[in-house]
């Protein structure tokens, strides 16, 4: 199973290079990989309820984190959807993209691998790593057109919202693991989902906080109200990205996590209440806002938000019927939504616009796209006999079994669905079937790779709808059982017989369809009004709060920076030193100042050196020209090197001398560019600087003195010295520590050196180019 995740990740790094050699053919090759994964998974079907394959490989044994992967029904359906739709999207992208194809294919494969990682991981920490990887990959994908400010802002927004959710998820996972360890699970199994389910961790007091944090993570990823706003804004991405991330994958990751952990959390009342409430709200709000849009991709985005709400709500309800409905709805939605996104992309590709008001009459020019669109839209609207219909029927029946709460939920669902049906028809019918518009003048059918995806997915919905039995027996029951944590048999049917519940459900569903159709017919007149209402509501929406918060933090940071970092070296130094002194005085005082020891055994050479050093420093302070100041500072530096040498630290001494020499060179190079050497006549300024300097010096000296008093266990240095020769084959202990015992620290340090070098390089470069620009203007 590991190879399923690894091959896309490896391929992701190779594809951009391959694309430079092969051009568009790469898309076909790239699509083979996820296509193969999907095929192999399908060949493993049918799966029985409760059946699972698992592999495990130790990773961080000390923390009990293993690369544990497990495929049960729920994982299998996600693997098939992610890789199957992924393959179609890669193909589609091959024709859709005009430039930058290699980068897009690479990022899509990276994302695909990360998604597969999420749905296959059995270890919560491994899952989290892949979870973050999808956030990073989606950041790069949403901001794909990185030369546009809007795309960058959307990418940042998506990253911040899902990233914050990711942090909550991590905290939740840690708490859950602690709870599990304290309830008696072993280190290895405390973070394994399959081990947690069925353990008695749910009685632990940390269980509830952990659950709430995990819920926040999942809900933010799945764009639930009030964190839904990042999804529609993410539509600035190229269409293949939207089609992939926002139909079957990224946003479904949250739903997946909820479904995966439902057997663990499902007994909690809070779980049900939060999921049902958030889900229902999201379902309604998403559908209402969708009706106010005219951009095809934004309509689809908001209807996706609505569907994600429905799925969350269904998991929250948690009865057998609700879980069945969630399974069907999830699968159907992935198919038709990806198809519709791709169709929107094809239309834009041909006409140059996505505005449904400017589109019309494309059916003659694009017959196959139109057919796919019609099928997908009917599935979305829930028209019999498509897959979507079964989903909606089940949805209604699930709620009919719920008594009082059910009535409210059904009302919400009916309202939401009326809007969804109208918008589905608007997206699929207006561009194709009403009178021709200006934009469709030069329309022609798109090329084959852009036809395959929508058509296959639209037909898949129809196929499962007509023969639900196949889905049932191969996968459906296994998925439902994974979510429910108990055996649930699907037995899907198009016709549910004459029982009162079935008839009521059918009735409601037909009424909803009718109302939706009526709304669609009137939509043209009402669009303006709905748009205005949505616009007013948006002013008070969470997106505005996010914006305020974001700009607020930036302004705050700017003010602090301006106050503390004035750009004048003198002022900056003052700030740094004052902070240093104030922050270190407290711990120094708390540990108690050391008793000054009598420096009895001071040698004459040492005291003379010390006096010369002091004299040099004092002379530097009093020097009237920069050159003499540099020279005097150089003297103190060299004398310090001599001191190092006297105290048998030759390595330090050599380094100190080299640094002194190079500092002088640097100063010489910049000498003529420095401002005039300022002599401060004002007494107050001089006194202030003197006090700050003396205080900093005193604190530093006390600290050094105090640290020399700390008697480390002698064994540490002795051990290092004694190990240096036999273990590291070196006599120079200092260097052995640097490059062997503490090599990781050194690696960090040289990385800092490298960054500093590049930083100076970049600063000087940008300064120069800015000046060059200023000169031209």
């Amino acid at each position: 199973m590991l190879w399923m995740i690894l091959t896309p990740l490896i391929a992701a790094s190779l594809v951009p290079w391959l694309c430079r050699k092969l051009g568009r053919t790469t898309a076909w090759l790239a699509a083979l990989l996820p296509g193969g994964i999907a095929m192999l998974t399908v060949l493993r079907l049918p799966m029985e309820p409760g059946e699972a394959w698992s592999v495990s490989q130790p990773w961080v044994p000390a923390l009990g984190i293993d690369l544990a992967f497990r495929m049960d029904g729920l994982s299998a359906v996600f693997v098939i959807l992610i890789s199957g739709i992924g393959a179609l999207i890669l193909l589609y992208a091959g024709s859709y993209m005009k430039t930058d194809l290699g980068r897009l294919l690479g990022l899509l494969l990276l994302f695909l691998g990360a998604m597969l990682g999420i749905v296959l991981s059995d270890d919560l920490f491994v899952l989290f790593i892949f979870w973050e990887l999808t956030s990073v990959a989606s950041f790069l994908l949403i901001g794909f057109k990185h030369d546009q400010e809007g795309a960058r802002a959307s990418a940042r927004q998506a990253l911040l919202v899902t990233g914050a959710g990711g942090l909550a998820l991590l905290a939740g996972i840690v708490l859950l693991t602690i709870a599990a360890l304290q309830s008696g699970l072993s280190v290895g199994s405390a973070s394994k989902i399959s081990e947690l389910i069925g353990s008695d961790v749910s009685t632990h007091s940390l269980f509830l906080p952990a659950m709430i944090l995990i819920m926040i993570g999942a809900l933010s990823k799945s764009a639930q109200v009030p964190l839904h706003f990042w999804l529609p804004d993410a539509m600035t991405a190229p269409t293949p990205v939207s089609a992939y991330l926002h139909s079957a994958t990224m946003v479904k990751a949250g739903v997946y996590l909820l479904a995966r952990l439902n057997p663990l959390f499902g007994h909690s009342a809070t779980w049900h209440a939060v999921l049902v409430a958030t889900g229902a709200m999201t379902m309604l709000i998403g559908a209402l806002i969708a009706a106010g849009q005219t951009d095809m991709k934004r309509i689809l985005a908001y209807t996706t938000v609505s569907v994600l709400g429905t799925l969350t709500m269904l998991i929250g309800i948690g009865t057998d019927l609700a879980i069945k409905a969630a399974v069907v709805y999830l699968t159907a939605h992935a198919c038709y939504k990806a198809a519709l996104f791709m169709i929107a992309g094809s239309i834009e590709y041909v006409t140059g616009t996505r505005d449904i008001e400017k589109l019309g009459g494309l059916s003659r020019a694009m017959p196959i796209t139109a057919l796919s669109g019609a099928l997908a839209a009917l599935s979305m609207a829930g028209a019999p006999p498509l897959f979507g219909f079964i989903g909606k029927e089940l949805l209604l029946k699930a709620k009919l079994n719920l008594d009082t709460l059910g009535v409210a939920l059904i009302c919400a669902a009916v309202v939401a669905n009326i809007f969804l049906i109208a918008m589905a028809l608007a997206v699929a019918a207006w561009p194709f079937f009403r009178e021709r518009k200006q934009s469709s003048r030069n329309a022609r059918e798109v090329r084959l790779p852009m036809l395959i995806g929508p058509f296959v997915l639209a037909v898949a919905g129809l196929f499962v709808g007509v023969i639900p039995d196949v889905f049932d027996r191969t996968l459906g029951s296994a998925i439902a059982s994974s979510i429910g944590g108990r055996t649930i048999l699907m037995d899907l049917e198009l016709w549910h017989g004459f029982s009162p519940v079935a008839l009521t459900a059918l009735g409601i569903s037909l009424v909803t369809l009718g109302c939706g159709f009526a709304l669609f017919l009137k939509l043209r007149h009402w669009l303006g009004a709905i748009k205005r209402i949505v616009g007013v509501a948006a002013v008070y929406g969470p997106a505005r709060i996010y914006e305020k918060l974001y700009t607020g933090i930036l302004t705050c940071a700017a003010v602090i920076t301006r106050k503390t970092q004035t750009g004048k070296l003198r002022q900056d130094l003052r700030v740094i030193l004052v902070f240093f002194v104030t922050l270190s005085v407290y711990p120094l005082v708390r540990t108690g100042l050391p008793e000054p020891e009598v420096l009895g055994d001071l040698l004459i050479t040492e005291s003379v050196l010390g006096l010369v050093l002091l004299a040099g420093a004092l002379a530097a302070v009093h020097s009237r020209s920069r050159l003499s100041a540099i020279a005097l500072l150089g003297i103190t530096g060299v004398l310090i090197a001599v001191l190092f040498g006297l105290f048998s630290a030759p390595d330090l001494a050599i380094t100190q001398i080299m640094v002194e020499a190079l500092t002088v060179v640097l100063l010489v190079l910049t000498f003529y560019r420095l401002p005039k050497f300022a002599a401060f006549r004002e007494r107050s300024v001089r006194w202030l600087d003197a006090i700050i300097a003396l205080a900093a010096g005193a604190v530093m000296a006390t600290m050094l003195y105090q640290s020399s008093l700390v008697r480390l266990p002698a064994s540490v240095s002795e051990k290092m010295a004694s190990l240096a020769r036999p273990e590291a084959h070196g006599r120079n202990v200092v260097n052995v520590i640097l490059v062997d015992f503490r090599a990781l620290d050194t690696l960090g340090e040289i990385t800092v050196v490298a960054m500093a070098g590049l930083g100076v390089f970049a600063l000087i470069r940008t300064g120069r180019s800015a000046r060059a620009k200023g000169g031209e203007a």
Partner: protein
Amino acid sequence: MNAIVFQTTVRFVTPVLLLFSIFMLLRGHNEPGGGFIGGLLAATAFVLYGLAFSMDRVKSLLRVSPPTLIGIGLLLAVISGCVALIAGQPFMYGLWLAWELPLGLKAGTVLLFDVGVFLVVLGAVLLFIISLSEES
């Protein structure tokens, strides 16, 4: 700065300093020295050369740009750490060749790491100084 005496001296001093820096790098394991000091010394050698002639000539002398030096250095350091991973030891565990190089040198991942440090320090210092000199 085109004093003939300085230029003539530098012509001789630079190669000696460079040799000396490599000497310091190699002996670092047993006597004072090592990648850090070696890198600083080598940088000083190049900087002296640059002061005597011009930084452009230093660039052509180097053949590779300082950022490339930094990159290669970091890469060597990381690779030296990964060798141990392949051998099934923890990251950065020092491994040694069984035989000795001429001059009684022991070769191993630690030496490779030190060479990485050398290159990073050399590249970073040269990057500072070359960018600053181009500025003025």
